[in-house]
């Protein structure tokens, strides 16, 4: 990182699908540096556009979510051209691991998760990538990360897709706690947004749509 001197990369934590994640120091603070590396299999123009856009969106919407009281990391630094973000280090365990290893401990957090999703939606933020990997349990709260696919929308369809994504992960990765976890999540969601019958119907409609193409 020759051109940026404000932060120091200390160690690679994870080579992720979306970005490489480093532990870093930001003016002495423990931080995370998220760097979206170029993908050689993608057309270079498309690749640059995706990385630049997502870096900007992530930084903007993570901060916006925080302003509505949803636990997210603080953003320290952004450079859309090199697709880098430096943010607060959240110490904790991912909801994914907790759900796989200590189901009983994980379950109560799903209500909190549902509440946070509802708070996002109430404020027009669609996360776009709700998985159990993107919640870090820290200080008894689920911190939401990874806003690279987030966007602003009022549409019921977009909210329904958001909930469908987390439902899909629960069904595929955490199928043994799916029912309880998803019910708790919806309970939390309802506690913020009230009755959501039409949203639930929308989720079912979305799930029917893609499963088998009727017109070949």
């Amino acid at each position, binding site marked *: 990182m020759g051109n940026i001197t404000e932060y120091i990369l200390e160690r690679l934590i994870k080579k992720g*699908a979306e970005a490489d994640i480093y532990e870093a120091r930001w003016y002495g603070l423990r931080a995370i540096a998220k760097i979206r590396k170029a993908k050689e299999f993608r057309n270079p123009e498309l690749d640059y556009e995706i990385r630049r856009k997502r870096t900007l969106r992530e930084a903007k919407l993570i901060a916006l979510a925080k302003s509505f009281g949803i636990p997210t990391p603080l953003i320290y630094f952004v450079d859309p051209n090199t697709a880098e973000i430096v943010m607060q280090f959240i110490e904790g365990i991912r909801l994914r691991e907790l759900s796989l290893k200590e189901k009983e401990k994980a379950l109560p957090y799903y209500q909190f998760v549902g509440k946070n999703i509802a708070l996002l939606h109430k404020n027009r933020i669609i996360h776009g*990538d709700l*998985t159990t990997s993107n919640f870090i349990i820290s200080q008894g709260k689920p911190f939401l990360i990874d806003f690279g696919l987030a966007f602003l929308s009022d549409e019921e369809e977009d909210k329904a897709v958001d909930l469908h994504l987390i439902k899909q992960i629960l069904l595929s*990765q955490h199928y043994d706690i799916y029912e309880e976890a998803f019910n708790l999540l919806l309970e939390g969601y309802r506690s913020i947004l009230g009755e959501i019958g039409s949203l639930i119907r929308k989720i079912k409609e979305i799930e029917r749509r893609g*499963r088998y193409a009727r017109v070949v």
Partner: protein
Amino acid sequence: MLEEVKCLGIESTAHTFSSSIVRLKSLKEGEILSNVRSIYTPPKGSGIHPTEASRHHTKVAPAIMHSSLKEAKLTMKDIDVIAYSAGPGLGPCLRVGATIARALASYYNKPIVPTNHAIGHIELGCFLTGLLDPLVLLISGGHTLITAYAGKRWRIFGETLDLTIGQILDQFGRELGYSSPAGSIIEELASNSKNYILMPYTVKGNDVSFSGLLTYAKKLLAKGYKVEDICYSLQETAFAMLCETFERAIAFCEKREAMVVGGVAANKRLSSMVNSLADRYKINLKVVPMEYSGDCGAQIAVVGALAFKAGYSVGVEKSLVRRSWRIDDVEIFWRD
């Protein structure tokens, strides 16, 4: 229970009518004795018409059934079980295969296995590639999804929210005046361009959405952009979306093996992209051989044999068709 099962598989989900005979001891041990097919081609510039396709199937069925037995050097007496594609698919087409299966089963007194077509693509892929527990990218005209096996089901990690990859290729091909399936023509046109036009790229978590992309490609065509450039950009964008969701699933579910199956797996640009992904994650990736990537009887016969070996079959009265049959609704008896 028989140690080795000889299964006759009949496929008639959409374009293809096919019959195949396999001899199987397990996913690891067996042989495809025959795999004969005939593909219905709609008139230029139009899509598949279910009734027309089913008429085609009815017409070619006797000859196809005959040659599959002849190639396998077997008679109906040697067959242990009959499998047919029960869904998902087009109603009139599915009913052709089901009717033949029922007729043969009652006449020769054989058990029947109604088979899920998508599971067929996957299990045939496992049989051919030797991968027993892969993360699967299934891409065809009827499906676009990412799945992995766990707890008696193939569970869905990601899927399309609207059109399938095969549909957008076919529908764009139709705009150009070709008949479906048009994937190979688009691939050829795309290979003559390196001029990328930025197109709508829609990934939502592990899911993709193609409808905006198709609309945009059609718009560019109407505006007079070069056909080769649009085909190239359409492929680059759609395949990058598939690769991104596949990559996310690889990173998320932490499997060591991955497999690409379905008709669109025959596309060389796509397979070079997924191979590059596999290198990055150091996983063992296999693309199903081109001969078996499209719809075929072998995919039905393999599942039929596996299910029958595991003790599953039905009588004629339960041999129905299910036009929408989700893969995660199917209980997989033959896997641990």
